């Protein structure tokens, strides 16, 4: 089966610091592919390189076998790769509904139309309302996004990303700062996305990762340390070493 997303020898650096070093991975269609690793392993940078928000030093990104490495960020989104943000990135002065409608009207190709009032595009409006309802934010649709709580902003951020109609959705620490109930709701939502949307998840909560993921890639110091089905990765000695160190941990506590 052709991978829906293939990363081939991708590298990226900030000045002289190499954050992602020759990373390759393949994401199968419909998978929930988790990327884990200690802080500073290069997970968020990898996402930036895949979406085109950051410039890759070398390597290729393929979507459905098509090389999208030379496309700018906005064109990769149109091709079907979208990411959510570690810190919710919203349009804070605009109503909640407009935040989603911006994504929908772009996907519908009417973002530059100047004559008809924005809310009179029935299909755009209806699709935006559907996305809001799925995120549980319908009641807040008229409020400025800036009045939402942190948890609600996370939900809206996800709704906005989904409204771009992605084939592959990159979720950057999606449950950080979420309540247990919101996390449970989020997991339901992500599970329901397959097989239409393939997800790649960066996450620190290992219980969540091993509960949800169908495939796990472990990054350590910018490189791939392990890659495979969850139960194999979990048992790997090298992974445990990367997370816990080699036995010197105990000495810290005595």
């Amino acid at each position, binding site marked *: 089966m052709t991978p829906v997303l293939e990363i081939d020898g991708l590298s990226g650096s900030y000045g002289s610091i190499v954050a992602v070093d020759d990373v390759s991975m393949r994401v199968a269609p419909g998978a929930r592919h988790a990327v884990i690793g200690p802080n500073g392993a290069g997970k968020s940078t990898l996402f930036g390189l895949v*979406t085109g*928000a950051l410039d890759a030093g070398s390597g290729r990104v393929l979507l459905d076998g098509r090389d999208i490495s030379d496309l*700018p*960020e*906005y*064109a990769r*989104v*149109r091709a079907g790769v*979208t*990411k959510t*943000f570690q810190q919710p*990135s*919203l*349009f*804070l*002065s*605009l*109503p909640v509904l*407009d935040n989603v*409608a*911006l*994504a929908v*009207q*772009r*996907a519908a190709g*009417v*973002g*530059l*139309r*100047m*004559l*008809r*009032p*924005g*809310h009179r*595009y029935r299909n*755009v409006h209806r699709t935006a309302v559907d996305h809001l309802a799925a995120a549980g934010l*319908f*009641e807040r649709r*008229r409020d400025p996004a800036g009045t939402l709580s942190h948890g609600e902003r996370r939900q809206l951020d996800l709704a*906005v990303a989904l409204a*771009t109609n992605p084939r592959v959705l990159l979720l950057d620490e999606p449950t950080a700062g979420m309540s247990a109930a919101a996390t449970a709701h989020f997991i339901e939502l992500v599970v329901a996305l397959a097989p239409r949307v393939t997800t790649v998840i960066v996450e620190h909560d290992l219980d969540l990762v091993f509960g949800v993921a169908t495939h796990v890639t472990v990054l350590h110091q910018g490189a791939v340390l392990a890659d495979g089905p969850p139960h194999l990765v979990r048992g790997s000695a090298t992974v445990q070493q990367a997370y816990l160190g080699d036995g010197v941990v105990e000495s810290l506590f005595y």
Partner: protein
Amino acid sequence: MTATISPARTSAHAAVRGGWAGRLRRVLPVATVLAVAVAPFGVTPPVSSALTRMCAFAVLVVGLDLLTGVAGLPSLGQAAPFGAGAYAAAIVATRLSPVAPLQLVAGAAAGGLLAAVIGWLAVRLRGINFLMITLALAELVHALANQWSSLTGGSNGLVGLPFIRIAPAGPPLVATGYVLWYVLAVSAACVAVVVVVSRSAFGRTLRGIRDNEGRMRALGYATFWPKYLVFCIAGVLAGVGGSLWVAQAQFVSPGSLNFEVSALALMAVVIGGRGTLYGPVLGAALVVLVRYELSPYLAGRGMLLLGGVFILVVYLLPKGLAGGRARRSA
């Protein structure tokens, strides 16, 4: 459960919209236009001329509000397309025809073309850098108007323009009231166009760019194009404003391209309430009133008074005269 909550909310909103505040907002623009239209029957010609200048300036300012308040691109160089429109209209008037709509088209085209050139460079920059490059390029255009004497009359400008006519066979509009009606009609139409654009899907795109351009790219928007488009639209409007200004003044000089014009226009946007469109129209009237009409009676200290007004507004009404009940984009 949700079904019981949502209709209550919706009807509450409908009540607000249909209430006196909503009705006032719908009636006020019409009432303003009517009041200005009947003014020539009750006021002296100098007052009519002052109202005419306010209307012309308001077109420049409402375009700048679309650029600055709605799209979040604060320009300090709108004097350039304004002056280009003024010169284009004046050149048509002296060399070609006294027909006002022809001068209007020439002014709009000149403002739009100049903005198309400046914008190609400027909209790639953000914030203070955008402010600086628009200012620098406008100063360049100002210098050009001073130097290119064969076309612009140099520092003397172009004087003694003929009275405008609406049609080639029509009579010249000598009475100030007729000129006011012409300028009022064009500027009201321009404001209406800006309101339509601001409420459109494109207007929503502009607000998205203002709030968070990075996320707009992450939604698949090539943000250069909407920014470039709105810069050109603002340029066309500035050019129209320039041609209307000349229709009344019958005179143009490099003074129309001054930094002061750019600064006054931005000031009118801030005083009126950026992003509200009708607020800046008010701001434009206030700025013209103080700077051009009252200044002679204040021994030329109009700018001092305007500075005082500006400081008061910024401190007391940080969102401008139209603040508070501003902007509800649907």
